[in-house]
Each structure stands twice: as C-alpha cells, then as structure tokens.
C-alpha cells in the first residue's frame, strides 16, 4: 500500500510540473463546448424559435381559434405563427424556411361540429428535429381537444355559428348560451377537476423535461470531452516512463507492477476528478443547477476517469511506438466524441445515431451523467450502470498490469 501511495505521489508531483498541458487539456473542451453552444443557441443567447406557416382556408371561429393556439403561453416563446397563402406556404417549407406548414381545409369548423371526418395537412422540416416534433404533438392535442369540446359544448357552438351567420346577437341569447355552457361545465366538473383518471408515472421523467434549460444537455458532453483529453494525455505517461527507462527499473524492483498501475491510475483519477469538477461546477453555476446533484455527478466522473485512463493506457501500451500510440488514440477518440455526445447532446442527435452513441463507452458515460444532472434528485443513475462502469475500470487496470508484465515494462 505504501508503494501505491508512493507512485501516486510521485506522478502527481511530476504532472504538476507540466501545468501548462493540464490547463490546455481543460481549456480546449471548454472552448469547443462554448463555441458549439453559441452556434446552436444552447448558451445564454435567445432560445431557438421555430416558424409555423398556416394556410387557413376555412377562416372560421374554430380555425382561427386553432391557429391562435400555437402562439399562446410557453408555446408562443418557441413558435412564431405566420398566415400564408397556399403557394407561398408550399414554396417556403420546401426551401426549409419554416419548421412546419399547416393547411386548415375549408369546411373544417363544420366538419368538426357535425362530427364528420376532416383532414389537416401538416408538412414539417426534415432538417430540424425538436420543433417540428413539438408542432406535430401540439396539433394532435388541439384536434383531440376540439373533439372533446364538440362532445361537451357542441349544441352551444352550433348556436353561436348560426347566430354569427344570421348576424342576430342580442343580450338574451348571450345570457342563455352562457348559462347553458356554465351548467354543462358544472355538471362535468367532478369528472374534470380533478380528473377521474389517476396517472402514475412509472418511467423516469423524459430527458427533455420541463424546467431544464437546453444548454444543460451540453454539460455532460463537455465534461466527458475534458476527461478524454486529460486521460489520453496522462496515459501517454506509460510510454514516457518506458522511454526514460524508469519503467524498466521498476520492473527489476521487488514491488509488483500492479502497484505501479494502481498508483498511476489513482494519480490520474485525482487530476481527472479535479478537471471534471471545474467543468461541472462552471456548468452548474452558469445554468443555476442545484448543487445537491454535484456529489453524485462527481462520483460518476471519477469512476469514468478511472475507466478512461485505464483503457487508454492499455490501448497505448499495445502499440509499437509512442507516436503510433498517440496517433491511434487520437484518430479513434475524435469520432467517438462526435457520436458519443461530446460535441452535440445525444438528445438532439437522430434517434438511431443517439442509440449508437449510447453504446460507445464515452456515450454511455455521457448518457448516464446527463440523466444524473437533469434528474429531480441525486443518485439517479441505476446500480447496474455503476456496476458496468466499475467492471470497465477494473478490467482496464488488470489489462494494463498484464501488458506491463508481458514485456512493455522491460522495453
């Protein structure tokens, strides 16, 4: 155990001499992450807004009500609604100028009130992922709401329609309609408030749950990018020690080489955890996230750091030279970071790509760290994921020790 601490202390002291490299490894991910966030609007800038083009060919009370619903409340912060003619709408959605193009057909109100089928045409922009999805979901909800409103207040709405057509509105009519609507709502109130159906949420809240700023989804990726840069840079130390002959000298000492691996990994873990903490803390402070989630996130980062360093060290030791080791890890890590959620959050990647990304080692770490950060409480990562990561870390260390014994140490 004394030798383990001795190796750890020695490496920490050595790496401290190269503080500039450590700062660069920290600065590069922060810079890349900051640039990507600012490009994609994930930072402090205005939220991304979508444009919904509506061609209202019915131009009735209900069609105008539906068109207006897209710009109400929080939806209004995400969408700008613009009324267009048929030709203009089709041209602009084809050109990718809008998130969606909705055609409300003539006879929409009549069909709804007469309980007849009606088809709305919605074209979405395939180059966007989130906003077209929101438009589709909202349209479906509005149509469902229209159906239930017709079931409940169909008579009253029909009377309003007829009155509007005849242009004969007097106080008595308004009073009778109001009383009728009031009565129906009161009779339905016990079923509506509270709803008769109790919903139990069995699944954890969706990743894109309300209350979490979109920029938060960038934090885990940037943290993992930092870990990857730092772990890869520190793992080169096996090669450095080999080239300066100290590894060979250690191999002729009576202590076991697993002690060298354990000590070096422990030193790397300290550095990685500090780096991860700095990035995480910046993200938490910037986004105002509750600090209660920090310890669990940091524990995941520390274990991820161990796994990352152990495996990168092992892979580098399999190579025939230091330059080959650096080359192979660099060309492997870039695409892994791309699909593993370091450059773009997994949540905004196309579904199949996100699924592939989650199955990469770094994507797995990003995915679980994301769930830890956006969850309502701390320690949200499931025990099985912790177990997988622990096995990953341990196996990397054992393989590194094997590689040292199998000839790497003696050169």
């Amino acid at each position, binding site marked *: 155990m*004394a030798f383990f601490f001795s190796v750890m202390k020695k490496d920490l002291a050595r790496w401290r001499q190269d503080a500039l490299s450590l700062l660069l490894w920290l600065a590069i991910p922060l810079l890349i992450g900051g640039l990507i966030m600012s490009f994609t609007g994930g930072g402090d800038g205005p939220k991304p807004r979508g444009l919904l083009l509506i061609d209202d060919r019915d131009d009735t009370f209900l069609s105008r009500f539906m068109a207006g619903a897209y710009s109400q409340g929080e939806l209004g912060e995400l969408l700008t609604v613009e009324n267009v003619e048929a030709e203009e709408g089709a041209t602009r959605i084809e050109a990718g100028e809008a998130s969606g193009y909705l055609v409300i057909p003539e006879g929409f109100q009549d069909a709804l009130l007469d309980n007849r089928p009606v088809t709305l045409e919605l074209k979405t922009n395939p180059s966007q992922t989130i906003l077209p999805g929101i438009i589709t979901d909202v349209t479906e909800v509005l149509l469902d709401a229209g159906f239930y409103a017709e079931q409940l207040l169909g008579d009253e709405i029909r009377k309003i329609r007829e009155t509007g057509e005849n242009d004969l509105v007097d106080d008595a009519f308004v009073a009778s309609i109001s009383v009728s609507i009031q009565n129906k709502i009161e009779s339905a109130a016990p079923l509506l408030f509270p709803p008769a159906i109790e919903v139990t949420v069995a699944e954890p809240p969706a990743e894109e749950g309300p209350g979490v700023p979109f920029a938060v989804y960038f934090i885990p990726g940037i943290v993992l990018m930092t870990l990857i840069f730092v772990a890869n840079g520190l793992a080169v130390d096996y090669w450095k020690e080999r080239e300066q*002959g100290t590894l060979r000298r250690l191999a002729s*000492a*009576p202590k076991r080489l697993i002690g060298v691996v354990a000590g070096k990994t422990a030193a790397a873990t300290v550095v990685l955890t500090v780096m991860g903490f700095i990035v995480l803390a910046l993200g938490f402070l910037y986004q105002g996230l509750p600090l209660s989630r920090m310890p669990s996130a940091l524990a995941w980062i520390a274990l991820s750091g161990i796994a990352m360093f152990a495996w990168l060290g092992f892979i580098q030791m399999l190579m025939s030279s230091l330059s080959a080791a650096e080359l192979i890890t660099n060309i492997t890590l870039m695409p892994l970071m791309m699909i593993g959620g370091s450059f773009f959050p997994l949540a905004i990647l196309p579904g199949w790509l996100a699924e592939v990304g989650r199955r990469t080692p770094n994507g797995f770490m990003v995915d679980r760290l994301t769930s830890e950060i956006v969850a309502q409480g701390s320690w949200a990562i499931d025990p099985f994921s912790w177990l997988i990561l622990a096995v990953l870390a341990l196996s990397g260390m054992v393989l590194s020790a094997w590689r040292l014994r199998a000839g790497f140490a003696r050169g």
Partner: protein
Amino acid sequence: MSSVMISVDSLSRHFGDLLAVDDVSFEAQAGAIFGLLGPNGAGKSTTINCISGLLKPTSGRIAVAGHDVRRDATAAKQSLGVVPQELAIYEDLPAIENLRFWGRAYGLSGAELDARVDDVLGTIGLGDRARELPKKFSGGMKRRLNFGCGIVHAPPVMLLDEPTVGVDPQSRERLFDLVRAERDRGTCVLYTTHYMEEAEKLCDSLAIIDHGKMIAAGSMEELRAQLGARDVLHLNGEFPGAAADRAVSALAERIGEGLEVISSSESELTLTLNGASQMLPAIFEALASAGAVVNETSLRSPNLETLFLLLTGKELRE
C-alpha cells in the same frame, strides 16, 4: 570476504532462433568487482537482464545473495541494486524525491529512508542540489543520481550495465570512485563494459564473453598469465594471397618466440610474439621477400584487449 553473492550456472537464453547467451557460468564474490567484458551484442546485457529478473532464462540457474531468481524472485530483487546503461531517473522530480521514490520501491520508509537518502546525497555529491529538478543537472550529475537511485536501499549486490557509455572522463572517474566505495563497503558489484581499460582498472576479476559464450574467466592476474609476455603486432599494407602467411610461418619455425598469425587478409596482418620490437627487422624482411608491402605498424603490450584478440581473432571494439 569470500561469500558468493551472484551465482550463474549454465545460463542460456534464446530469442527465437538466436542463442544470445550460451551456457554461461560464473560466480561473483562479496566485496569485489566482477567485470563482464565483451563487444556490443556479446550477450552481456541479456545476462544481466536474466540476473535482475527482467528476462527468464531458457535454461540454467541464477542465485542472488542465495535466493533463486525464479523461485524466490522478490527476495532476489530486494538484494539487487540496478544501475542501467541509460539514465533511468525522473527528470521532472527533484533529486531528493527521486531517491525517496526508489527507496520506497525497495521497501524503505520513515527514518530509515530519510537517513539513507541523506547518506546517498552526500555520497553522490548532490547534497546542495537535492531539491532541484534533474533536468537542470549536467550529464555527470544525472549519472551520479542514476547511481544513487541504485544504492539508496544499500543492496548487497549491484548490477551496473555499461554505466559509463557516453560519459565524459571526469564523470567517469567520479563514477569509478563511487563503484569502488560500494565495493569497499562489502557490496558485490557486477560491472559490464566493452571498454577494456575500464575493466582492467576497476575489476578484481572478470569474464570475457563473445557471441553469447564465455571465452575466458578469472582474476586479472590469471588472465594476464594466459597471455604470457606476448606482444601483438598489427600491420597494414598489401599482403598478397597466402604468400605472406607462409613467409611468417617459415619465420616462426626459424626464430620461435611464440610467433603466431592471429588474423590475416589482403590488407591486414595481425601477429603475436615475444619481444616483438626486437623481431621487427626480421619480420619485415620475411614479408618483403614474399612480395608484401607494409604501410603501417602498431605494436601493443599484453593486455585484456590483446587477450580478446588472441581468443577471438578480432578486436574488442569490432
């Protein structure tokens, strides 16, 4: 003191088809410097790597301070202090921390470690530079620190693998003093080198190794006795065909004096004989009569290099 600290018995080591060490045996005593002399690639480093546990012998047995290096590897390694050919120190760690680290690697701790580190810093003359980074040191200072890291745990056996390669003369002398001081402390020192002068100057006994085979062994006196008083005469020039060899052989029959051809080619001829300087006129006359032309002559007194030449027919530096 005469206890055996390193015992190598019938050591062989293969690398695929290459037999790097072939049935080598020797013993090294406590309080003595045992040299392993041979040209580059002779098998010295392979032998030392087998002793230090870095390589497993293909066959044979090695014991260090009575511990078998395979069956009792930890105890054997604990008894060893290794000073590698290349510097093996942390240049980004202060000198004192280097010594502390290597001391801990051999199980030292606490007051014992502090005392040994202080002692070694004084021995290697780096007491006033202890807290500086070795990357700021001169080459000689780094060599001394490299040596210090090998003796910090006061090992009874030391392995020095060509420690003076690329070292300036002044630092070399300083290193010799350190090695002798360890010897005088009772340490058994195994010293490999391809510098004949170094081996002659430093070693109490030695083995000469070439192509993995041990070709001579013994104390310096014993090895010199093998040479007798014969000088080595090396001639450069033109020595056509076998005529020069025949002329020398005829001369040898005539004058005796142990005259012998060690090696010959169209441009070089190497001879050994007693009192070569007195015999030069007769040799030149014999060679001239055979049509040879001598352009350059060198005469060497008996030493390890000439012994190596006698035994292998080639120069140690080849």
